[in-house]
C-alpha cells in the first residue's frame, strides 16, 4: 500500500487541501496507508481531477516525499509498481509512464488478451498430457496410458482454467442476477476471441445485447483479474455506473478481492458504494464560502477511530444520504410537507382528545391522518416508521 498523504496548493479549485491517507489512531493498522480511499462530494469539487492527478503524478515515483507537478505533494510509504485507471471516459490522461494502464468502459483491449494467452497456455499443457496418453494407447502401454490419465486429472484438479476461475469466483455470482453466466466450455477457436455469456438456455448472448451495467462489470473485472496487479495504485471512477443497488453493494468487495495487495482510489456519487468503506477511508470534498475545496472532517478532537461521527457501514441508506451526502431530508419535498401536515393534524387530534372528544377510526380527521400515515409508508398501528 502506497500513498500516505496528498497536499495540493493553489491548483484549480484547491487552495490548500491536505489529505492524510493513513489509518487513524486506535485502528489495528494505525499509521499505515489506507487500503482504499473513496472520494465523495458535489459535482465540481474535483473528485475525478484528484483521481487523474494521482494516476498521472510525475514520470517517476519516489519513496520519499517530493513536490511534483501542479503544486501537488505526495508522500509514499513505498513506490507503487503500476498505476491503473478504470475510467468512465475514453480520454486518456496525460501520463508519461510505461507502468500506466488505462481501461475505459469499452470491452476491447481491457485485458482479455492476457486471459487468452493464459487459456492457450493451459490448453497447451493439457495437449501434452493428451498426446502422451494417445501415444501410450498406440504403443499398447496401458499402464502408461493409465498413469498419464491420472496425472492429467491431478493437473486439471490443481490447475483450473483461468476462464473457469474468473467465471466461478468473480463474474458468475454477479451475472446470475441477470440470469447469465460466462461460457466456459469453449467449442471453437472463435470463442476464445472474446468473453461469451450464455443464458439459461445455454445460448450465447451477443455483446450488442448486453446491458451497460454488464459491460461495466466485464470491462472492469477482466483487467483487474488478468493483470494480477501487486503493490500498485488503482483508480476507479464512478464504480456504480449503470449498476442496480444490489450489485453496487457488492462491487467494491469484488474489486478488492480481484486485486488484493493494492491501493484503490474511488470517486463516487453513490451512498451504497460509500457504505463499503470505513469512515476514515472516505474523503468528502466540499466547497467553502469562497468556492475552494476542503475536506469535511468526520472526527472531533484527536483523529482516533472512537472520535468519528458516522460510520457508513452501519447506517441506513437514508442516514448515509443525510449525514454523509448532506441531503437535507429523509425523502422528497412532498414527503417533508406531508410529515408536517401529519404532525399538525396528529397534535390537533391529541388536543381534541384532551378536551374530551371521543375519537374513532370513523372520524373524518382520524381517517385523514391514517391516509397520511399510509402514504408515508408507516405501519399505522404503530404510528411510526
Amino acid at each position, binding site marked *: 500500500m502506497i500513498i500516505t498523504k496528498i497536499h495540493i496548493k493553489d491548483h484549480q479549485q484547491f487552495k490548500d487541501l491536505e489529505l492524510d491517507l493513513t489509518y487513524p489512531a486506535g485502528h489495528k493498522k494505525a499509521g499505515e496507508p489506507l487500503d482504499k480511499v473513496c472520494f465523495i462530494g458535489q459535482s465540481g469539487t474535483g473528485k475525478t481531477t484528484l483521481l487523474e492527478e494521482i494516476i498521472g503524478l510525475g514520470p517517476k515515483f519516489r519513496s520519499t516525499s517530493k513536490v511534483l507537478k501542479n503544486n501537488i505533494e505526495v508522500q509514499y510509504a513505498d513506490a507503487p509498481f503500476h498505476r491503473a485507471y478504470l475510467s468512465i471516459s475514453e480520454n486518456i490522461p496525460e501520463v508519461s509512464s510505461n507502468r500506466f494502464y488505462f481501461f475505459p468502459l469499452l470491452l476491447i483491449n481491457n485485458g482479455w488478451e492476457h486471459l487468452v494467452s493464459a487459456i492457450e497456455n493451459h490448453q497447451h499443457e493439457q495437449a501434452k498430457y493428451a498426446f502422451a496418453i494417445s501415444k501410450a494407447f498406440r504403443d499398447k502401454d496401458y499402464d502408461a496410458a493409465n498413469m498419464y490419465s491420472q496425472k492429467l486429472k491431478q493437473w486439471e484438479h490443481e490447475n483450473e482454467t483461468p476462464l473457469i476461475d474468473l467465471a466461478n469466483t468473480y463474474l458468475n455470482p454477479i451475472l446470475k442476477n441477470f440470469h447469465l453466466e460466462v461460457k466456459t466450455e469453449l467449442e471453437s477457436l472463435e470463442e476464445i476471441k472474446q468473453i461469451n455469456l450464455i443464458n439459461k438456455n445455454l445460448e450465447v448472448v451477443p455483446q450488442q445485447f448486453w446491458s451497460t451495467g454488464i459491460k461495466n462489470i466485464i470491462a472492469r473485472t477482466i483487467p483487474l483479474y488478468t493483470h494480477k496487479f501487486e503493490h500498485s495504485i488503482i483508480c476507479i471512477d464512478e464504480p456504480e455506473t449503470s449498476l442496480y443497488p444490489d450489485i453496487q453493494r457488492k462491487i467494491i468487495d469484488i474489486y478488492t478481492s480481484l486485486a488484493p495487495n493494492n491501493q484503490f482510489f474511488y470517486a463516487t456519487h453513490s451512498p451504497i458504494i460509500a457504505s463499503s468503506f470505513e469512515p476514515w477511508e472516505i474523503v468528502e470534498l466540499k466547497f467553502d464560502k469562497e468556492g475552494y475545496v476542503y475536506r469535511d472532517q468526520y472526527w472531533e478532537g484527536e483523529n482516533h477511530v472512537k472520535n468519528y461521527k458516522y460510520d457508513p457501514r452501519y447506517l441506513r441508506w437514508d*442516514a448515509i444520504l*443525510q*449525514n454523509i451526502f*448532506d*441531503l*437535507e*431530508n*429523509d425523502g422528497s419535498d412532498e414527503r*417533508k410537507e406531508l*410529515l*408536517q401536515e*401529519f*404532525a*399538525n393534524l*396528529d*397534535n*390537533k*387530534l*391529541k*388536543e381534541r*382528545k*384532551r378536551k374530551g372528544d371521543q*375519537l*374513532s*377510526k370513523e372520524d373524518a380527521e*382520524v381517517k385523514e*391522518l*391514517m391516509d397520511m*400515515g399510509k402514504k408515508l409508508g408507516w405501519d*399505522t*398501528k*404503530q*404510528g*411510526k416508521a
Partner: protein
Amino acid sequence: MRKIDKQCHLSTVYKTWESSLTGDHPTYSHSTTKRLHYNSIVMQLLFNQDGLCAFTEERICPKNDKTYSDNNWADGIYNIDKPDISGDLEHFNSSLKEKQGWLWDNFFVVSSFINRKKGTKEVDSILKPDDINYEASKMLDYNPTTNFFTPHTELTDTEKDRVQKMIDTLEINNGLIVDKRERFLNKIFLLSDFGVDLDIDEFPTAYEMTSILKETNNEGSILDTL
C-alpha cells in the same frame, strides 16, 4: 426555540456604541467596526443562547464554561480569540442589514447551515426568539412521532399560518435538524430509562415538550390509541 434573554452585560463597548448610533449605521462589512465588535457580539449572544443555535437549538459552540468566563472579557470587549464555532452572526430581518446592520435587536447567532438556508427570507416577529410576546410553549407544540415542531393547537388559524411560515423560514424542521434532534432525544430517553441522566445540552425545547407528553403518556401518535 427557546425565548432568549438579550441582555448585553458583557459586550458593553459595542452596546454603548450601538445605542449612540443615529441615522444609518456603518456598513456591516466595514472592516474596522467588524474587527472591533464582531467577536464581542457573537460571544455575548452565545452566552445568552447557551452556545445553541437561536432557532434550531443545535449546539454550535462547545459547552465549556471557560469560553464564557468573565476572565475572557476586558473592559467590555471579548479579549481572547473567538472559539471555533459552527455558527454565524445572523440578521433576523435581513432588510435592516443595509442601513441598520449593527442593530443589537436584530442579531442572533445561528448555525452556519441555517443562516445560509434562511438567507434573506421575509420574517414575522411572531417567532422572534427575543420578542416580548414570544413564549415557546404558547407558540409551538412538538410531535415526537415525526420530531417536527407544529404551530400551537390553541392559536387562531391566522396565527397558525404565520407560525408555520416562520417554522419553515427558520428551518426549525429542516431534515438534518430533525434527524439530529431525533437521535439526541432517543439517546437521552433511552439512557433515562436505564437510570442514566445526561445533560440536556441540545434541543432543550423538544426535550421539555416531549417530557411533558411522556408524563401524560401522550408522546405517541393519536393513531396508537385507536
